[in-house]
C-alpha cells in the first residue's frame, strides 16, 4: 500500500517535470530563435526550412548592428535616465514616507489620500497635457523631459511608509537624546535599517524606467536623445525591415544586459512582486 502510493507519487512527479519542462522550453524558444538568427548571414536568414543552429556563425552581425545606429549613445541615455530616476525617486519617496510614517501634522490624512489618488491616474491619461507642460518649459528633447516627470512615485511612498512603520519607535528617542535632526535620523538610522525595501524600490524604478516606451517616444525628437527602446524600434523600422540577422543582433544587445541583471537580483525582485503586486515594466 505504502509502496504503491510512493510509486504513484514518483510517476506524478516525473509527469509534472515533463509538463513544466515543455512549457519552459516553449517560453525560451523565442529567445533561442533570436540568438540563432542573430548569427546568420542573409542567405541563411531567408532559407526555408529555417535552421535552429546556423551553419556558419556570423558574429559580424553584432558589429554591423552596433555601427548602423548610435547604440552607444542610446545605452548612455537609457542608463543616465534610469539611474537619475531611481536615485531621485529614492530621495523623494523616503522623505515623503518618513513624514507619513513618523510625523504628526495637520492635513496628514488628506495628503496621504491625495498621494494615493495619483496611482489611479495613468501616464496615458495625462499624456497630452504633460507633453504641453514640457513644451512650455522648452524641455522637449532633453534629459529633464525624460527624468523629471518620474521623480515622484506614490507606490514607492506607500511601500516605504509601511516599512518605516514597522521599525521601533524607541529609535527616535535615542536619536533625540543625541540631538540628531530628522534628516540625519532618516539618512543614518532609518534608511540603513530599511535596506530590503530600498533595494526593491530601486529595482522597480530602474527596470520600469529602462523598459519604458510611450513617454520617451513622444518627448524625444532627435536621434541622439533616444533611449535604447526607441532607438531599437527606429533602427528596425528604418532599415526597410529585411536585415533580420542584424536586427536580431541589435535586439540581443538591447535585451541581454537586463536579463543578466535580473539573474543577479531575481530573488529580491520576485519577492518584491509577490508582496506588492508591482512590477517594473
Amino acid at each position, binding site marked *: 500500500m505504502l509502496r504503491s502510493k510512493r510509486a504513484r507519487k514518483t510517476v506524478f512527479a516525473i509527469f509534472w517535470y515533463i509538463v*513544466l519542462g515543455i512549457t519552459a522550453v516553449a517560453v525560451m524558444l523565442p529567445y533561442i530563435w533570436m540568438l540563432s538568427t542573430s548569427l546568420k548571414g542573409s542567405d541563411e536568414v531567408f532559407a*526555408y526550412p*529555417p535552421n535552429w543552429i546556423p551553419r556558419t556563425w556570423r558574429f559580424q552581425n553584432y558589429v554591423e548592428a552596433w555601427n548602423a545606429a548610435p547604440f552607444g549613445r542610446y545605452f548612455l541615455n537609457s542608463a543616465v535616465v534610469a539611474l537619475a530616476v531611481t536615485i531621485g525617486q529614492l530621495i523623494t519617496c523616503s522623505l515623503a514616507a518618513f*513624514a507619513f510614517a513618523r510625523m504628526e501634522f495637520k492635513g496628514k490624512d488628506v*495628503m496621504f489620500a491625495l498621494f494615493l489618488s495619483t496611482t489611479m491616474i*495613468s501616464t496615458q491619461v*495625462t499624456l497630452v497635457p504633460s507633453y504641453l507642460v514640457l513644451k512650455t518649459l522648452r524641455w522637449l528633447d532633453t534629459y529633464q523631459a525624460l527624468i523629471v516627470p518620474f521623480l515622484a512615485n506614490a507606490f514607492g511612498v506607500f511601500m516605504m511608509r509601511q516599512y518605516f512603520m514597522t521599525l521601533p519607535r524607541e529609535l527616535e528617542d535615542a536619536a533625540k537624546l543625541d540631538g540628531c535632526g530628522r534628516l540625519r535620523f532618516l539618512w543614518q538610522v532609518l534608511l540603513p535599517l530599511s535596506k530590503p525595501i530600498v533595494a526593491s524600490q530601486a529595482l522597480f524604478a530602474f527596470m520600469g524606467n529602462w523598459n519604458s516606451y510611450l513617454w520617451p517616444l513622444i518627448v524625444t525628437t532627435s536621434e541622439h536623445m533616444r533611449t535604447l527602446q526607441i532607438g*531599437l524600434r527606429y533602427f528596425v523600422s528604418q532599415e526597410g525591415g529585411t536585415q533580420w540577422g542584424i536586427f536580431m543582433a541589435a535586439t540581443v544587445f538591447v535585451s541581454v544586459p537586463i536579463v543578466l541583471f535580473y539573474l543577479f537580483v531575481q530573488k529580491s525582485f*520576485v519577492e518584491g512582486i509577490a508582496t506588492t503586486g508591482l512590477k517594473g515594466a
Partner: protein
Amino acid sequence: MTALARQRGNWWHRWGEETLSAYLFLLPSIVIFATFVFFPLFFSFYASLTHWNLPFKPSFTGLENYHYLFTDEIGAPEFFRSIRNSFYYALGVPLNMGISLAIAVLLNQRLRGVSLFRTAYFLPTITSTAAISVIWLWIYHPADYGLLNSILLKLGFSPLRWLRDPHLAMPALILMGIWHGMGYNIVIFLAGLQSIPTTLYEAAEIDGAGGWARFWRITWPLLGPTTFYVLVIGIINSLKAFTQMHVMTEGGPLGATTTITYYLYQQAFENFAMGRASAVACVLFVILFILTLIQFKVVGSRIHYE
C-alpha cells in the same frame, strides 16, 4: 543634557514646527504630482472642451469633441472600434490566467529545481516590450521562412499572413501578450497559493479528497481574491498597452489593432488634434478609474480576509 541638546529635543516636539517640516519633506513629491498628475488631469478636462490643433491656439467648443467621438458618422465608428479592440485585446487576460494558474499549481508542488523553471517563465516579463515586439515581428514574418509559417508548412498547413491579416493581427498580439505576461501572473498566483495553510490540504487528504477535489474545494475559493486582483490588473494593463502596437502593427492592418491608447496617440501626435485627444483621454480615464476602484476594493477585502 546640555542646553543646546535640550533645545533641539524641544523642536522635535513642537507642533507648528513639525507640520512645517513634514510639508517640506512632502514638497518634492507634491511639486511633481501637481505638475505632472493633477494639473494635467484637470487640464485634460478643459482641453477636451476645446478645438485645438497644434500649433494653433485652443478655442472653446463645449462638448463638440465628445459629439465627434460618440455620434459622428466618421468619428464614432473609429472610436468605438478602438474601445472594442482594447477589450478584444483584454480577452487574452483570462487565457493568460488559466495557463498561469495551472503552472503556478504545478510549481507549488515543491518539486526540486522549481526555481529554475520559475526563472525561465519570468524572463519574458522583465524583457522590454520593445525588444520582445521585435523578436515576435520576426517570428510572425509572413514569408515561408518566418518561424511560425515554417512550422505550419511542416505540419501541412498553408502559411498565414499573421500581423498583415486584419483578422489575425489581434490574436497574434494576444498570443505574444500571454507569453510576455505569464511570469508576472505566475509569481502572484504562487504567492497566493503559498498563503493557503497546508493543514487544510492535509485534512482534506485524510478525508479522502483527490487532487481535483482539493483544487476546486480549497485552492480555487481561497485563491478568489488573488484571481480577481490578477484579472482586474490584467484588464487595466491591456487597456494601456501601446508599445507592441507601435512596434509591430502601427495600429493596422485596417485599424484592426488600433486600441484606445493607440487612437489617443494618433489623435495627439500624428494629427496634433489636442482637444480631441484630450476627450479620448477623459473617456480612458473614466474606464480606468472604475477598474481601479474595483481593484482597490478587492485589495481592501484581501487585507480584511487575511
